[in-house]
């Protein structure tokens, strides 16, 4: 018989046991009678010899080995029965728990998908990215193409190694002209990732060279869109950026380097000057650790290669080295602390929920004390009672957890969509068995947490004292436990409230900051010139001035400017600068954000001119090179002296005359600009960009437009007007500056909203907790209160008496919470840009809110206590 059988047929087995024991007793009695004992005495002796039949039966049941399961089933049924009897209690506990576990599960699902799950490549832990490390600015640079080639050739530990860089363009054939994002990749890229192409083949090494036949790999999306997934796409032509490419492969669906891209071209076919420039660090490098090589060994080898490169090419590589870091780290970037922070916050909410339920359960356990004592008197073991209590809370936990998982399944998508910007690896966020396991253990842990206090109580009570005392008195220990729960809840709520308050104040403060530009009625958009003009620098210049002229003619447009970087949008160009003819040592060169613009830029963006002049139409390629600097750079480079008229040497631009000083622009966003490493800003005329860089600049130039009407209303007319003679000039990434400014605070606002919700929940739960505990405590003390009133206490005295008790708990809770909240505030300051941890006002406001709410929650039971009828209360005793 299996245990399952035994469990299933336990009724029959019990009957048989009964029969077996009866047989034994009868035979024994019969033997005794045969020896001459009278019937009654024989029966009695036989019974005594066997011992209590019920006890023997219990032990036999224990011996069967399925006892725990039977008990579990029994406890389970009992729990369901008690829950059904008290639907209000069940609803409150289950919904509290479902909310807590649901929220925690959502956060864990995101963390699991983004941080924990291995990347979807073979042996993902061996994939690394390479960065150029500089002493002054840490490692936020790419690598130059010549350095990549040297590194690829020399490295033994990082094989294979591949490179890529950004490169979008206009697809003109087959179908309508459309701007698509693209990547230029070296031939080994797909084999580094270990990804096979869906159709066709990867680039061959001989195709990864200047002058090779133009070939292209397209994304699954583009294949579906432009070729409707046809097999004949391989080998067919694709018009891209004015050239005709042959499609040789189709990337598998979902393959992405960073962000989506539709077109992959061979990096080595790029003939731009910067491909030969060792100082142009724009290449992204990925590699796979060779068999048996550790990351540390690879680092050591890279350091060696980096040193050699620095010796051989000191101008480009001095004071910099190469570093590898796991690809996952690179992909996930800076969301890691935010995610853990949020998981921490929801865990606090769950903890408060648990404390709340524990105090409810405890209140119930105290009122069930007589029942428990009765069970002990009837022979239940202490262990058995503890087990019963724990079963009850485990059942609660699991039911709540199941509801929570349901909530999480519904809530996860909206949460990911709501995330500011794009969450890395968002497509991998889903409920899987890791998440279910997490939810199950969270539910069981919660169950254990809130079930422990009542369970331990059940075992520790003195039996007869309890039976004698009756259910009407409340002992000191349980009152202390209740107070402990309330204090814990308040302390946790303080932490969340203060965190939410600090974030709220931060968002308020940051939104009121001056971005340095006038963000109202400004539209920023990328422009992709007609591919036909890109071969000739003179034609490119003409095309750009045509773009500006045409845009000016659109009704509602006031002024138009071109610029390579738009404030608060992704994209940057850092250049070193110095003020004497001889450059300082490479590791001491300061870096400024350099932006090439057309003369109307100041007017469009509304940047204030502080000194001198801005550019005009005379600042051309054949005129004297000029730059305009911002006040931050003026302060850094020239101190108190007059900068206008001085000379400034800028990397890659050469010496130029400073003709003006303008206000600082918060390029890195409202929140992050103060902490940014590069805050100096240089502007130089787009007209003075040399011919050989024209094509490169054209690939990332943007247009900024100041309008007199709602900026989004000019988007369509602009699009139409700018189509150009050949109809293949396109606008993409169209944003208003207001959108960009607001997006630069999105993560702070998002955190504030979430923390606000969590804090609200915590406050609500804490108030319910206080309310519940006080209702319970006062109802237990009705006789005492009655006595007080009979002895002359007024209603007001009674209210004050109860409130004083709750005030005590509230203040201890606030005190404990304050210390924790101060630590939490420092953590926030470290993790969220723009947060200041010392905000006494915020602390004060949030704590007053809490105290008022808690007092309100305690006022209701206090008033109820004051309306006790003394006579009736005394008679109850």
């Amino acid at each position, binding site marked *: 018989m299996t245990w399952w059988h*035994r469990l299933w047929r336990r009724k029959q087995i019990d009957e*048989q*046991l009964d*029969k*077996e*024991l009866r*047989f*034994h007793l*009868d*035979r*024994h009695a019969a033997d005794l009678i045969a020896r001459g004992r009278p019937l009654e005495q024989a029966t009695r002796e036989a019974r005594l*010899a*066997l*011992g*209590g039949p019920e*006890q*023997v039966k219990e*032990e*036999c049941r*224990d*011996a*069967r*080995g399925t006892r725990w399961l039977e008990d579990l089933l029994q406890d389970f049924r009992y729990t369901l029965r008690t829950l059904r009897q008290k639907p209000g209690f069940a609803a409150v506990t289950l919904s509290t728990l479902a909310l807590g576990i649901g929220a925690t599960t959502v956060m864990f699902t995101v963390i699991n998908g983004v941080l924990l799950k291995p990347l979807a490549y073979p042996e993902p832990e061996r994939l690394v990215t390479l960065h150029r490390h500089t002493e002054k600015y840490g490692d936020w640079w790419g690598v130059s193409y010549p350095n990549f080639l040297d590194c690829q050739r020399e490295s033994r530990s990082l094989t294979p190694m591949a490179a890529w860089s950004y490169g979008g363009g206009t697809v003109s054939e087959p179908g309508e002209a459309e701007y698509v994002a693209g990547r230029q990749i070296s031939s080994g890229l797909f084999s580094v990732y270990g990804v096979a192409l869906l159709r066709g083949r990867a680039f061959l090494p001989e195709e990864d060279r200047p002058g090779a036949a133009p070939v292209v790999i397209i994304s699954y999306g583009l294949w579906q869109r432009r070729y409707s997934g046809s097999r004949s796409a391989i080998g067919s032509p694709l018009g891209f950026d004015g050239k005709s490419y042959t499609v040789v492969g189709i990337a598998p669906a979902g393959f992405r380097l960073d962000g989506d891209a539709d077109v992959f071209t061979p990096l080595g076919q790029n003939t731009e000057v910067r491909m030969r420039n060792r100082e142009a660090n724009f290449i992204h490098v990925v590699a796979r650790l060779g068999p048996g090589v550790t990351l540390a060994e690879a680092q050591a080898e890279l350091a060696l290669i980096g040193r050699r490169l620095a010796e051989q090419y000191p101008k480009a590589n001095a004071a910099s080295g190469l570093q590898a870091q796991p690809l996952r780290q690179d992909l996930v970037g800076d969301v890691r602390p935010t995610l853990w922070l949020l998981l921490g916050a929801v865990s606090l909410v769950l903890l408060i929920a648990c404390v709340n339920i524990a105090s409810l359960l405890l209140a119930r356990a105290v009122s069930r004390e007589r029942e428990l004592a009765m069970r002990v008197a009837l022979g239940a073991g202490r262990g058995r009672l503890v087990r019963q209590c724990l079963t009850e809370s485990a059942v609660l936990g699991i039911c709540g957890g199941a509801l929570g998982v349901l909530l999480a399944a519904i809530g996860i998508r909206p949460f990911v969509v709501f995330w500011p910007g794009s969450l890395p690896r968002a497509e991998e966020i889903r409920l899987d068995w890791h998440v279910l396991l997490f939810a199950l253990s969270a539910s069981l842990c919660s169950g254990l947490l809130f079930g422990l206090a009542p369970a331990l109580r059940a075992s520790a009570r003195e039996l007869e004292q309890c039976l004698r005392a009756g259910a009407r008195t409340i002992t000191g220990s349980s009152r202390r436990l209740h107070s402990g729960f309330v204090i814990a809840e308040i302390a946790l709520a303080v932490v969340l409230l203060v965190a939410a308050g600090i974030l709220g104040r931060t968002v308020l403060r940051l939104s009121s900051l001056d971005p340095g530009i006038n963000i109202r009625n400004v539209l920023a958009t990328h422009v992709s010139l007609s591919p036909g003009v890109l071969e000739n620098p003179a034609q490119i210049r003409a095309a750009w001035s045509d773009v500006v002229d045409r845009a000016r003619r659109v009704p509602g447009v006031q002024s138009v400017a071109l610029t390579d970087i738009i404030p608060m949008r992704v994209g940057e160009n850092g250049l070193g600068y110095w003020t004497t003819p001889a450059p300082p040592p490479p590791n001491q060169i300061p870096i400024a954000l350099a932006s090439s613009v057309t003369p109307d830029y100041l007017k469009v963006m509304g940047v204030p001119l502080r000194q001198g002049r801005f550019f005009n139409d005379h600042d051309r390629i054949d005129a004297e090179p000029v730059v305009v600097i911002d006040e931050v750079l003026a302060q850094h480079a020239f101190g108190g002296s007059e900068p206008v008229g001085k000379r400034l040497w800028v990397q890659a631009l050469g010496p130029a005359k400073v003709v003006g000083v303008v206000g600082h622009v918060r390029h890195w966003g409202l929140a992050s600009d103060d902490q940014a490493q590069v805050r100096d800003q240089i502007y130089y005329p787009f007209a003075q960009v040399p011919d050989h860089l024209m094509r490169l600049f054209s690939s990332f130039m943007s247009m900024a437009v100041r309008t007199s009407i709602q900026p989004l209303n000019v988007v369509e007319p602009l699009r139409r007007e700018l189509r150009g003679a050949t109809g293949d000039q396109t606008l993409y990434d169209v944003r208003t500056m207001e959108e960009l400014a607001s997006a630069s605070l999105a993560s702070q606002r998002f955190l504030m909203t979430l923390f606000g919700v969590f804090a609200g929940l915590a406050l609500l739960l804490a108030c319910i907790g206080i309310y519940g505990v006080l209702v319970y405590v006062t109802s237990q003390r009705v006789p005492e209160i009655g006595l007080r009133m009979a002895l002359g206490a007024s209603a007001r005295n009674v209210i004050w008496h109860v409130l004083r008790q709750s005030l005590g708990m509230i203040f201890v809770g606030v005190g404990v919470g304050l210390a924790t909240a101060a630590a939490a505030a420092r953590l926030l300051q470290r993790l969220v840009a723009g947060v200041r941890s010392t905000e006494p006002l915020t602390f004060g406001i949030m704590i007053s809110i809490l105290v008022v709410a808690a007092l309100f929650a305690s006022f209701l039971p206090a008033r109820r206590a004051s309306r006790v009828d003394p006579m009736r209360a005394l008679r109850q005793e």
Partner: protein
Amino acid sequence: MTAKSDLPQGTLDLLILKIAALGPIHGYAIAQRLQQVSRDVVQVPQGSLYPALHRLENRGLLAADWKETETGREAKFYHLTRKGRAQLETEAASWRRLIEAVSLILRMSEGGAE
């Protein structure tokens, strides 16, 4: 809790197995047989006999059938399974080894005292 048997821990199981090895037998008869064979030296509290029987049945060392006794009543008759027989042999062997070892030690210590 009921009083413990005077037998050393685990011996009751061994004795039950030995008695059941002689042929199918019901609980009451086992109790009688234990008392008789040991000439009343071994006092098995009858209360702990049945849990032991059920435990052994549970572990598959004993199997049970309901059969009629000579008086015509139905009783639960236990008999040894093949697994039970193997268990009996190993346990009996180890028991004998233990007894020999213990008596050796006892004799030696007597010799030492002289």
